[in-house]
């Protein structure tokens, strides 16, 4: 079987396209004024991330990213928006307040950016000696042995979230 012409170049182009989708989705999510477009940007960003996971030889994670983040999280957010406010009114904000909040956000963002970039530059990255096969069985074994503590803690967090939602729903019903 002959190699398809330009195969590495095509793969690189697709990889770059996924990077571009992720970054542009994130930018749309952060910059757009309409909240519904922001959610669409988030969905786009998640699809780009799924593509990157696929490049990391982990199709299971890629599909989970789409199933959970696009199919569940984004849908829930859009549903919330739709119930809350059909006609968006953009509130006017005073200039000085905008300046204060803007500079605060700028400072925090810059601090995060510097810390993360310093961390990633200073860390001695080792290329993995063996490539994990990324299969469902391997992920399952890892979750229940190496990472069982994290797994249990996450389930506790979910339990607390469900209980909290129940409490909020209960009080909401009795008030009306």
């Amino acid at each position: 079987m002959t190699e398809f012409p330009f195969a590495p170049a095509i793969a690189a182009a697709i990889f770059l396209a996924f990077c571009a989708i992720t970054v542009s989705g994130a930018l749309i999510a952060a910059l757009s004024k309409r909240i519904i477009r922001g959610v669409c940007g988030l969905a786009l960003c998640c699809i780009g991330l799924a593509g990157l996971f696929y490049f990391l030889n982990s199709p299971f994670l890629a599909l989970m990213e789409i199933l959970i983040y696009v199919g569940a999280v984004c849908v829930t957010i859009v549903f919330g928006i739709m119930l809350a406010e059909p006609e968006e009114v953009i509130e006017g904000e005073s200039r000085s307040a905008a300046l204060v909040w803007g500079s605060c956000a700028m400072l925090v963002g810059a601090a995060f950016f510097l810390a993360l970039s310093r961390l990633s530059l200073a860390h001695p990255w080792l290329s993995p000696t063996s490539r994990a096969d990324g299969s469902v069985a391997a992920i399952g074994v890892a979750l229940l042995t190496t990472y069982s503590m994290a797994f249990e803690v996450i389930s506790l967090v979910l339990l607390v979230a469900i209980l909290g939602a129940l409490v909020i729903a209960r009080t909401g019903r009795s008030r009306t």
Partner: protein
Amino acid sequence: MTIIEPIRILLYVVGALAFVGVNAAYLVWLERKAAGRFQRRAGPTEVGPAGLLQPVADAIKLMTKQLIVPPGSDELLFRVAPVMVMAPAMMCFATIPFADSIAARNIDVGLLMIFAFGSINVMAVMLGGWSSRNKYAIISAARVVSQNVAYEIPMLLTIITMLMVAGTMNLHEIVRQQEAGFWAWNVFRLASNPLMPVTFIIFFICMLAETNRAPFDMAEAESELVAGAYTEYSGMGFGVFFMGEYANIVIGCAIATALFLGGWGSPVGALPGVWWFLAKMYFLIFSVIWIRWTFPRTQFYGLLNLSWKILIPVSLTTLVLTSIAIKIPRMF
């Protein structure tokens, strides 16, 4: 003769596009014919023999219509929504095993892939409804979400039950396990798990609800909500939504065939597998149409009650009982 991989995939993509288009066109014809027969009338007869050219005429009509974007709507989202219904459905066709050697890609997590891309459908219908800026469309979008969220849970629970029985997410593997004959089909494997028919029925009901088919067609309840989320779409925008809906029905029935009815496996040993796959799939599609024209639309509360109070408890019970049935024989 071997064709190199990228070209083979390209051919399959073109084939899947053609398959979806032809299916959408002729399933509409079948639906209208069947509806006519159920109601003791003839259905389409005018264009071509037995009305067979009716879909072509419909397509020409849809394509010549003007595309209208309602003023004040979110134009970008309004135009993107039909694409978002269609594109994920096309992705799902990549992994459906029509026969042992006929599948674009034998993906190891194929079953998961179909559900991942299937979940984008809700978002698309909702965005279409929201961006139309139409009262009926927004009501329909809200209904679509609560319906799909409610029915996705029992659907995924039955899928988990199936995964435990099969032990793999690879659709080819699942079909191969059922190859011995019709007694080995998952729906009839009562010896290993007596609850299989229940699982199949729950899956089928959830499939009807997820594809927004009657008696669960809350998204497009034409007698209550004009045309639901699609009210403001004209011409091919509406046409693409419709094609997406039929593509989802085809995918749902193909999955049911592969998971429960033995896929390409032949019950008598004659004919190549792909014909058996198509026969089983079209039988399921026909029953989807059959159900639509037999039962009236349920009430919305009835719909949610059915899911939360009946289907979810039953599917959870089957899940627990199946895991017990699998585990207990291994303990001795």
